């Protein structure tokens, strides 16, 4: 569900908000799910999300799937082995996950001589920073919103009393 929502958001934002075309919101969701649910769920989410994204793009089906499977699994492992509960470590995980994804994705395409990426260092670094920022904000929102709603309810009930 989250993957479908990310895909819908990705394809819609790319049209209406210039600059968001460089972000990979599906990857952000995969890493988020992996960090919160563990390596197996991360792996399965990565596989599903990658295959769907490959099918919707014009490339080879499986390359993005493989890259996201790997990223989902490794992010899940990191989430279980380390405490990734602060914005900075989360930013680092999202950043590294994007770099790994780009390395596998671009590496495989280049290895198979299917697509030439030139020297995409700046573009990849920009995408990694963007994905990391979106990932950290998503975490903060998901964690803070329920608490904020609770606090508001409690404040209202105190006023009534």
């Amino acid at each position, binding site marked *: 569900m989250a993957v*479908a929502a990310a*895909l*819908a958001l*990705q*394809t*819609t*934002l*790319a*049209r*209406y908000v*210039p600059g968001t*075309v*460089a*972000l*990979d919101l*599906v990857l952000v969701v995969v890493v988020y799910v992996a960090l919160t649910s563990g390596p197996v769920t991360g792996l399965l989410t990565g596989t599903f999300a990658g*295959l*769907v*994204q490959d*099918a*919707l*793009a*014009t*490339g080879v*089906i*499986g390359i*993005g799937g493989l890259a996201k499977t790997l990223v989902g699994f490794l992010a899940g492992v990191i989430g279980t082995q380390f405490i990734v509960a602060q914005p900075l470590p989360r930013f680092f995980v999202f950043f590294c996950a994007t770099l790994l994804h780009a390395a596998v*994705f671009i590496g495989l395409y280049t290895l198979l001589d299917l*697509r*030439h*990426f*030139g020297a*995409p260092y700046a*573009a990849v670094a920009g*995408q990694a920073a963007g994905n990391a920022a979106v990932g950290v904000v998503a975490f903060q929102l998901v964690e803070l919103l329920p608490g904020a709603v609770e606090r508001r309810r409690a404040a209202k009930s105190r006023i009534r009393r």
Partner: protein
Amino acid sequence: MLGHILLISAQINSRSGVPVLEAVAFGVFAEVQRGISAGFSSVRSVWSGYAGLRHVKSENDALTRQLEVAQVALQQQRALADRTRNLERLLGLRDRSNLNTVAADIIAGGATPDFRTLTIDKGTRNGVRADMSVIAPAGVVGRVVMPGTRAAKVQLLIDRNAAAGALVERSRAQGVVTGGGDDRLRLDYVSEVADVMVGDLVVTSGIDGIYPKGYVIGQVESVEKSGGAYKKITVKPAVDFTSLEEVLVVLTPTPAREAADGSVE
């Protein structure tokens, strides 16, 4: 089980030559994208119809002035077109300006940042086929890579795997325009001795069999000597790919395509 089904379907092609998995996934998602696009369009039309009416008076005055200028320009262009038509008739050239096109709305952007694609709301039901060129009033947009029944995927000219036969309008120097994945194009295979200057207009040459001849691709932004046999030329696309809303799919086959189809038959 699911993996097997996916892998098998990925290797079987549908009648249009597209893998079944790709066709099914694209068809399903295109409908979702159509719904989302319709929702966004409704919100935008409500916004522009009510909240955005504050500056309508001044905008109307400015547009009226622009229209007057455009009408004068139109008359000049019409006179020029008449003259050209007469010359073409004299030279016995076939008039290729009457291209059969179908207008399409863009319903979604690319699903992944590594592939520069768009989804349009016209498909095989409207006569859209693979490798048909897609143009906008400003110039060339790209080509259809995956036609669905009610939607089609368009590869933008700025995609890394996109290319088009091109020529510099002023000097008629020929080359190949290729995308780089960013917002700029490269004009490759232009001879080191060719006459190319910054600001030159680059148009389609029509030799690729996809894009009709003479349509604007962009303007030369920089020309460098690469030291080899060819110049290193950067082209700024005429089309702003971030603000596209409506495009035209060219249904008329190019002469090169007609010739190729004829030789196949």
